[in-house]
C-alpha cells in the first residue's frame, strides 16, 4: 500500500524482517504440528496361524518344567540322609531299608527321567520334521502367492495400457495441481486408482453391460477410511441404464475402497473422478 517518502529508507529492512517472522512461524508450525502419532502397531498383538502341529507343542512346554525342576530336589536330597544314617547304623536297620527304598525310588526316577528325555528327544525330532514340512508348505504357498502376484501384475499392466488416455488426462491435472509436484505421490495416486478399479471390477455384473466397450465416468467422494460420503455421481453414462446401475451397485458393494494412508496423497482421493470400462 502507500509508503510515504520519509518511510522509504526503512521499508526494505522492515519487509525483510516481516518475511523472516513468517518463515519462523512456518518453521514452528512444521516442527510442532507434525502429528506423527505413535504407531498403534506397538499395541497390536501379532498372531501366527499354524496349520500343522497344534498338539505336539503343548506337551513339550508341559514336560520341560517336570524335567528341569525335580533333579535339583533329588540331588540335594541324598547328602542329608547319610549323615543321619551313620549315627544310627546299629540301632535301626529299618533306616537302611528306608535308604534302599529311597535309592530305588531315585533309580526309578532317574529311569523315568531318561525315558522322558528320550521321549522329549523323539518329540523334538517330530517337531523338527513337522516344522520342516510346515516350511515346505509355506514355501509352496509363497510360490503360489508369487505366481498370483505376477498374474495380478500382468493384469495391472493390461489395465494401465487400457487406461493410457485417462492416465494422460490425470497427469495433466496433476501437473497443473500444486499438490502433486513429486513424482512419487503421483505414482501412489496411480497405484491406488488402479487398486480401486480392480476392486470395483470384481463386483460388476458384466452380463448387464453387453455392448462392445462402454465407458462410464463416476465422481466419488471418499473419506480417509475408504468409505464414500454419498452416492457416486454418474458423469458419463454408458448409454445402457442397466449397465450404469450395475456399475453403481458394484461401487457401493466394494466399500471400503483402498485409499492411501498418507494424508497428502489422500487429498487427491477426496473427490475422485473414475473412468470405468467394465468389458475390458
Amino acid at each position, binding site marked *: *500500500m*502507500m*509508503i*510515504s517518502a*520519509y*518511510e522509504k529508507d*526503512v*521499508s526494505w*529492512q*522492515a*519487509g525483510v*524482517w*516481516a*518475511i523472516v*517472522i*513468517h518463515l519462523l*512461524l512456518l518453521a514452528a*508450525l*512444521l516442527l510442532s*504440528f*507434525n*502429528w*506423527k*502419532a505413535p*504407531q*498403534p*502397531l506397538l499395541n*497390536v498383538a501379532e498372531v501366527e496361524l499354524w496349520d500343522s502341529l497344534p498338539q505336539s507343542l503343548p506337551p513339550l512346554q508341559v514336560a520341560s518344567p517336570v524335567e528341569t525342576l525335580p533333579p535339583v530336589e533329588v540331588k540335594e536330597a541324598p547328602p542329608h540322609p547319610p549323615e543321619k544314617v551313620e549315627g544310627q547304623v546299629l540301632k535301626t536297620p529299618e533306616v537302611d531299608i528306608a535308604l534302599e527304598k529311597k535309592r530305588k525310588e531315585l533309580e526309578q526316577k532317574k529311569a523315568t527321567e531318561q525315558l522322558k528325555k528320550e521321549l522329549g528327544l523323539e518329540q523334538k525330532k517330530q517337531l523338527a520334521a513337522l516344522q520342516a514340512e510346515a516350511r515346505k508348505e509355506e514355501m509352496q504357498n509363497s510360490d503360489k502367492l508369487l505366481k498370483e502376484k505376477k498374474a495380478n501384475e500382468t493384469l495391472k499392466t493390461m489395465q494401465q495400457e487400457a487406461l493410457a488416455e485417462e492416465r494422460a488426462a490425470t497427469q495433466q491435472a496433476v501437473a497443473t495441481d*500444486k*499438490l502433486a509436484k513429486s513424482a512419487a505421490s503421483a505414482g501412489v495416486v496411480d497405484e491406488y486408482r488402479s487398486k480401486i478399479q480392480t476392486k470395483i471390477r470384481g463386483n460388476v455384473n458384466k452380463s448387464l453391460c453387453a455392448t462392445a466397450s462402454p465407458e462410464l465416468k463416476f465422481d466419488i*467422494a471418499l*473419506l*480417509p*477410511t*475408504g*468409505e*464414500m*460420503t*454419498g*452416492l457416486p455421481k454418474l458423469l458419463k453414462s454408458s448409454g445402457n441404464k442397466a449397465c450404469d446401475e450395475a456399475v453403481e451397485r458394484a461401487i457401493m458393494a466394494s466399500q*471400503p475402497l*483402498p485409499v492411501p*494412508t*498418507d*494424508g*497428502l496423497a*489422500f*487429498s487427491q482421493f*477426496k473427490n475422485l473422478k473414475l473412468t470405468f470400462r467394465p468389458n475390458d
Partner: protein
Amino acid sequence: MTVSVANDMSIFSLVVGASLPVQLVLVVLILTSLFSWWYIFIKLAIIKRAESSAEEFEAAFWAGGDLDKLFDSLGSGLRKTQGMASIFEAGFKEYVRHNQQPRMDVSDVMEVARRAMRAAYNRELDNLDSHLPFLASVGSVSPYIGLFGTVWGIMNAFRGLSNVAQATLSQVAPGIAEALVATAIGLFAAIPAVIAYNRFASSVDRLSVRYESFMEEFTNILQRKS
C-alpha cells in the same frame, strides 16, 4: 490399514487438503499478516527515529545558544527536517519574516508563527499516525476472517459425514483440524497487530504531547524576544 488412517497430519497436508474457500481465507490472512508485520517494523523504526531526534533537538534547543545559529544549522542540512526540528523551523521562519516588517503588531507576529507551527505539527502527527488504522482493523477483523474459514471447513466436514452410518473420530478429525488452521492463522495475524497498535498509539500520544509543550514554550520565548 484403517487403524493408521489420519495419524500422519502435517500442517502442509492440512492446508493442501482444505477446501477452496478455506484456502482463500488462508491466503488472505497470510497476506494481511505479512502487511501488518511490515507496517509494524516500519512504525517501530519511524517512531524510534522520531523519539531520538526529539531528544537530540531538545538538548540542542535548551543548551541556550543563539536561535539564529540553531536555525541556520538546521537549514544547512540538505535533507528535510523532521519532528520537533521542523516545527521549530516553520515557526522561526515565519517569526523572522514578519518581525522585520515594522507595521506588524507583536501579537499578530506571534499568531502567524503559531499558525505555521500548528501546521507543521499536524503534518508531523499525520506521518506518525500513518498505518495505525490498518493495524487496528487487522487486529479486530482477522479473527473473524479466520473464524469464517473455520466455520466453512467444519460445515463441509460434517456435510460429508451426513451419509455415513457410523461416523468415527478418525473421519471427523481431519476436517476439523483443517478448518482450525484458519483460526490459528487469523489469531497469528491479529495478536501482534493489536499489541503493536496499542503500543504505537501510546507512543504517538506521548510524542504529540511533547511537540505541543515545545510549541507553547517556544511561543513564550519568541514573545520575550520581540
